[in-house]
């Protein structure tokens, strides 16, 4: 794939910020959107907009076909066996909360264990903290190696026959670590636990096959993979979703409503209360078409290449500390760092003055920050439209930052 060619599909990248051509290195927070997605949303609202699953009229049918068509694109994208296993929700956070509140409350009791890792995003920590508090279960953390990976020995030592849920991120939003989900799933299953996967940082970048992973649930967000904000996906094995109760009740999700009792629609609609995120799903479908055309394998290779280049280039800057796996092959396109004693906010402000967008802060991973023994870090994250020139600009920007603060530190 040719990143420079692909940039032409992203109009937002073609602008100056603070007098410099924009270098967007914050795709782990949210990716930019190609014209294909913007046009799909535009066309949906201009030509097809209507509510789904109810109209007899033509637009209603069209909107329904588009919405359900997007569901089948998602199914193929992650190789699920049925669209019954694809629930459209607001995003990864909502999806993980649904699993915790519905599956969790029904299947976890006092004395049971829920297992996560130190590197999780808050959205894969707090739902389980709340579940542990609600049920009296124990929340356990799989420790981390010095290089920001987790070892299978530690997984085996932490997951026990009392464990009911194991929930792990597939790719770290801070360290870029790619976790061995398939192996962890085997251990979870050997102990009778279900495996939940936070794939928010994985779906945009690496090929996901839920049948091969054999995970029980997997969640991701559209906006990190070229799609719009406000649309996300929960994949769940049909047997689990069938046994689960909805947590949102109202229109769209009901089969029959009586005065005192109601029944639910079949899968997946029983989890989609209210008018669904129709345009969002259509936009996500267009994003999937776009990614498929480039090929997830090509995107993954491109990001390994950029990560390797960054890991080679950035350490030339004196005083720069990089966190996470040392090899670009072992990480997705995320590089988190600190520059001497310059606070990451100050780093990000100087880089912004140079037109370079990076994230600074705790990246919604406070336990991981504690583990790294830092209060905050700066993060550059790459996607299919980033180039080695972008990393050169980052390196030059960091040198300027260092120079700018040199009389202070």
């Amino acid at each position: 794939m040719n990143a420079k060619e692909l940039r032409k599909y992203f109009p937002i990248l073609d602008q100056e910020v603070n007098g410099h051509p924009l270098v967007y290195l914050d795709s782990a927070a949210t990716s930019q959107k190609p014209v294909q997605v913007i046009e799909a949303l535009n066309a949906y609202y201009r030509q097809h907009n209507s509510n789904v699953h109810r109209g007899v009229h033509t637009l209603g049918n069209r909107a329904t076909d588009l919405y359900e068509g997007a569901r089948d694109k998602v199914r193929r994208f992650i190789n699920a066996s049925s669209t019954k296993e694809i629930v459209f929700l607001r995003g990864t956070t909502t999806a993980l909360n649904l699993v915790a509140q519905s599956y969790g409350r029904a299947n976890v009791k006092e004395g049971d264990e829920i297992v996560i890792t130190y590197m999780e995003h808050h959205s894969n920590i707090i739902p389980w903290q709340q579940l542990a508090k609600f049920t009296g279960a124990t929340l356990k953390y799989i420790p981390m190696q010095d290089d920001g990976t987790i070892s299978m020995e530690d997984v085996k030592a932490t997951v026990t026959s009392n464990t009911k849920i194991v929930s792990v991120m597939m790719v770290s939003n801070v360290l870029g670590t790619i976790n061995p989900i398939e192996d962890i799933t085997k251990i979870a299953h050997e102990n009778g636990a279900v495996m939940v996967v936070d794939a928010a940082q994985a779906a945009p970048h690496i090929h996901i096959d839920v049948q091969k992973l054999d995970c029980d649930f997997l969640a991701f967000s559209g906006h990190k993979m070229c799609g719009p904000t406000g649309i996300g996906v929960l994949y769940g094995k049909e047997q689990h979703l069938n046994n689960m109760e909805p947590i949102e009740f109202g229109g769209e999700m009901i089969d029959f409503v009586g005065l005192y009792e109601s029944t639910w629609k079949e899968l997946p609609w029983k989890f989609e209360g209210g008018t669904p995120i129709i345009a969002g799903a259509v936009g996500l479908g267009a994003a999937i078409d776009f990614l498929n055309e480039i090929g997830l394998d090509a995107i993954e290779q491109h990001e390994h290449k950029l990560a390797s280049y960054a890991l080679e280039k950035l350490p030339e800057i004196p005083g720069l500390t990089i966190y996470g796996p040392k090899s670009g092959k072992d990480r997705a396109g995320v590089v988190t760092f600190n520059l001497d004693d310059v606070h990451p906010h100050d780093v990000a402000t100087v880089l912004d003055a140079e037109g370079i967008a990076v994230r600074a802060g705790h990246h919604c991973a406070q336990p991981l920050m504690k583990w790294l023994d830092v209060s905050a870090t700066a993060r550059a994250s790459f996607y299919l439209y980033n180039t080695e020139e972008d990393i050169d600009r980052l390196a030059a920007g960091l040198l300027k930052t260092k120079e700018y603060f040199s009389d202070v530190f």
Partner: protein
Amino acid sequence: MSFNNLDQLYRQVIMDHYKNPRNKGSIEDGSVTVDMNNPTCGDRIHLTMNVEDGIVTEAKFDGEGCSISMSSASMMTQAIKGKNIDYALQLSNVFSEMMLGNDYPDDLDLGDIEALQGVAKFPARIKCATLSWKAMEKGLQDEK
């Protein structure tokens, strides 16, 4: 180096307060203690004050954060020491107006604080500058 915009933010006096913070530390058995953080970025402040007969006789801060948040805390503690609660809260209002880029009354002696004016042009950094002031307001309002 030409960073004209940045120079409005990172004024010499700010960097001086960052490098040599005034009133850094914690008062043991302080009469007022406030812990506050900025959940979006991880900055946190631990503010302790002694208030006697409506006067802030002592103020110290501890915490973690960027140059803007820490220098602002340093200046804030410097400005309220020896002043009464009403004055400190009034100063805080003036500071809020300054951060919003609004006109503010010029009858108070702002001293070093005036150097933080440039923060108003960096919307993403306003919360850094106001953290310690919010902590002070919270602590002193309870004392009124």
